[in-house]
């Protein structure tokens, strides 16, 4: 991934008022500690040698998810032009984990950043759709303007903080 794409992604996140932190597999636990509020739930990250710390409940029940303050899930790709993360829905519950808690922390490998929407849809067509494959292109927190002015946090998270893994193995796919 070129540094230009990373810079574009960060500019987009800034526009969205979404925070981000760069780290690596070794630093992930420490980074998550600073950006997650307890209780935190998550779903296991699909990359070799990258694991969630013990204090993240990574096998949550529906009630755990509803009670959590933070949800941590893997992002399939990031879209630099938009500051979006693409969240594949997995059978262990990444969709509710990314949706219910007040803060969502998507973990994205730096190598999975793509430039724009055409690249993102090539990836989606190949990796997601068909046979129950689903994904959310998520851009910033949930929002509504239906109550008279823009409010962040409608039915979904009020805040998003992207954790970028700068060194993760590039050979394995999140699905």
């Amino acid at each position, binding site marked *: 991934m070129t540094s230009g794409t990373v810079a574009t992604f960060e500019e987009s996140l800034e526009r969205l008022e979404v925070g981000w932190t760069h780290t690596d597999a070794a630093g992930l636990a420490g980074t998550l500690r600073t950006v997650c509020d307890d209780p935190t739930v998550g779903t296991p990250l699909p990359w070799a040698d990258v694991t969630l710390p013990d204090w993240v409940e990574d096998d949550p029940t529906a009630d755990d998810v509803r009670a959590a303050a933070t949800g941590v899930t893997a992002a399939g790709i990031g879209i630099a032009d938009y500051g979006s993360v693409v969240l594949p829905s997995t059978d262990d519950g990444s969709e509710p984990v990314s949706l219910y808690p007040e803060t969502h922390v998507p973990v994205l490998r730096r190598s999975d950043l793509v430039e724009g*929407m055409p690249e993102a849809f090539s990836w989606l067509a190949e990796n997601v759709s068909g046979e129950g494959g689903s994904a959310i292109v998520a851009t910033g927190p949930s929002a509504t303007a239906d109550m008279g002015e823009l409010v962040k946090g409608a039915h979904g998270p009020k805040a998003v903080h992207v954790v970028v893994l700068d060194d993760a193995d590039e050979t394995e796919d999140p699905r």
Partner: protein
Amino acid sequence: MSTSREAKAERIRHLLETEGDAVGQNTRGFNTGRYESVADLEDYEGLKDEARAIKEDAIDRLPELIDDLTEAVEANGGTVYLASDAADANRYVREVCESKDADRVVKSKSMTSEELEVNDELQSAGMDVVETDLGEWVLQLADEAPSHIVAPAIHKSREGIAELFRETFDPEDPPETAEELTMFARERLGELIADADVGMTGANFLTADTGTMALVTSEGNARKSALVPDTHVAVAGVEKVIPSVEDLQPFVELIGRSGTGQDITSYVSLLTPPVNSPTVDFGDDTPLADAGSDDREFHLVLVDNGRMTMREDDQLKETLYCIRCSACANSCGNFQSVGGHAFGGETYSGGIATGWEAGIEGEAVAAEFNDLCTGCSRCVDACPVKIDIPWINTVVRDRINRGESGEFDWLVEGLTPDAEPGGVDLQKRFFGNFATLAKLGSATAPLSNRLADLGPVRSLLDRTLGIDERRDLPEFQRETLVDWFRARGGSHVPRHEADREALLYPDTYTNHIDTSRGKAAVRTLEALGVHVTVPSVPASGRAPLSQGMVATAEERAHEVFSALAEPLDEGRDVVVVEPSALAMFHREYEQFLAPASFERLRDNSYEVLEYVFGLLSNGAEVDQLAGPSTDRTSAVADGGASTDRLAYHAHCQQRTLGLAEHTVAVLEAVGYDVRTSETECCGMAGSFGYKSEYYDLSMDVGEPLREQFGDEDGRDRRVVASGTSCLEQLDALLSRDATHPVELLVPDG
């Protein structure tokens, strides 16, 4: 005013007072956001072309794509039901819900479900139906209809919603701020979603290759509605099918920008149901990872409800390309003032609603609001799939005209030598034949003007034709522009000395009423070395077209082209003063003329200041034109308005053609400081503002213009405008005379 006109005027006044402010603020915000957001796109026009091509292909191959989609959804384990009409769709949805013993159905926002009125069906069967989109929920509590296809509660203020919540729930600590109101709704709805039995969603797009649906949302309620209950029912019009997942890309980039001015909405869900996410069962101790998704059931209800017939209708077919982004509503001056409760039918609102309502509900429903499209064409550039929305409105108006049984009336007999069948509304026929009236008016001026100004005559005109008494009537000139030009001995630049030759098109207004701008145009072109001719040429057909008199407009198109073909062959450029006439040549004539004829006229006709701009760019000397310093006398005549500072309002159709910038460039080149208006349309829109039932609306649409040109910076600027009706409207809105820009350029005054 007739009673039906009075009733219509009263209803519009009521909406202007009660909902106009909220609607205006929100739609104008969306519209400004659209301009800013699409400006960031590298290739906006290219994306629109791509989106349009995908829709054209998809609607063309629709039956085949529906088969493919059905196969894909069934292969995924879902069910597809093709419903012929609303009753059929509702019955199916009810039976699915009954088969699940559903007590509660939660819904995310879906205009198709509004169209079906499926809530009524389910509620009659004893089910609790809850709208989870915050705006839709507010309307459900208030028992009101959406006023906008994307932001349904756009007409409600924060204070109004707070009061509604207080009345409905009597909470201990009533929410007041937007944040508090949102959290209050989130909490209530969260509980209702948690134990819902069926989740209903719409679908913005469906891909035939994989059976994937795209839901474009921001709140997250659609995600919850599809995720939490184990049964998911999606309702979608058949037109939502596109070939493949990759085809979603241009739409995802365009839909948010075009609608609410967001680059992208918070969530674009790509669901291939039944989804593999585990079912979410609160109160159950099983970890989600073990819950599994085997219980999931998915039903896709594809709704025809008139769409397949629209597909066979050459004129309404384009409506099916609509992606319901709301750009045509937000960019519409009339919509910005009254919103969808006036400018809308049973379900849909805004410019494209005429196509939808005519196709789905029938022409009678479309007839109730179709007049609110003035053909200003500002939605044409805004539409992400390039639908010619004004044309659809015109065609439907024509059909409505033909369907009406009218009475013969002596008043307009002789004034209406048109190609329309009997029964066209008298008011429409009168305005549609304005060119004939203008001829008579000039021939009998000044008597015609004095007569028309008499109280009893005005009152008769109002009663019978619905011409509002508060409007000044145009004053006919005894000597037409064509007569004047002949009398002065033709062009003062001999042909052999000229660099170029131009035919100045004498549109009805310039020829009969505002001849001074025509004379100014002739003198300006001559100052730049152009040999000018001003022959008699038939009217452009704009007036009948705007009344939906398509056959008459088509006749005009053929007559005009016949008159211009030879001058065009002689290498003359056609120069047009009135932008609405030029827009006929550049846009609507494509519907009427042979392609080669249309292109020849379009490629060789110019708006007058565009032409001046071209002459200056090709070596003509700007010194030949007058500028601010030579303009002192007329400034004094105008009551002391600044001599070098202008407030310029370009004509709506001129802006759609991309020709406003030329005027600004020329005025700046001769030394003026130009401020341009930031409003889509002045509100007059040809005959619209003269009609008694629309007078108040017309003035309200012009209000932002009055504010812009009446503020501290605008107050002492001289007002210039390119369109006849804009000039009339500005005269009425401001206490300053408005001038056509070409009149400022004439050397020696």
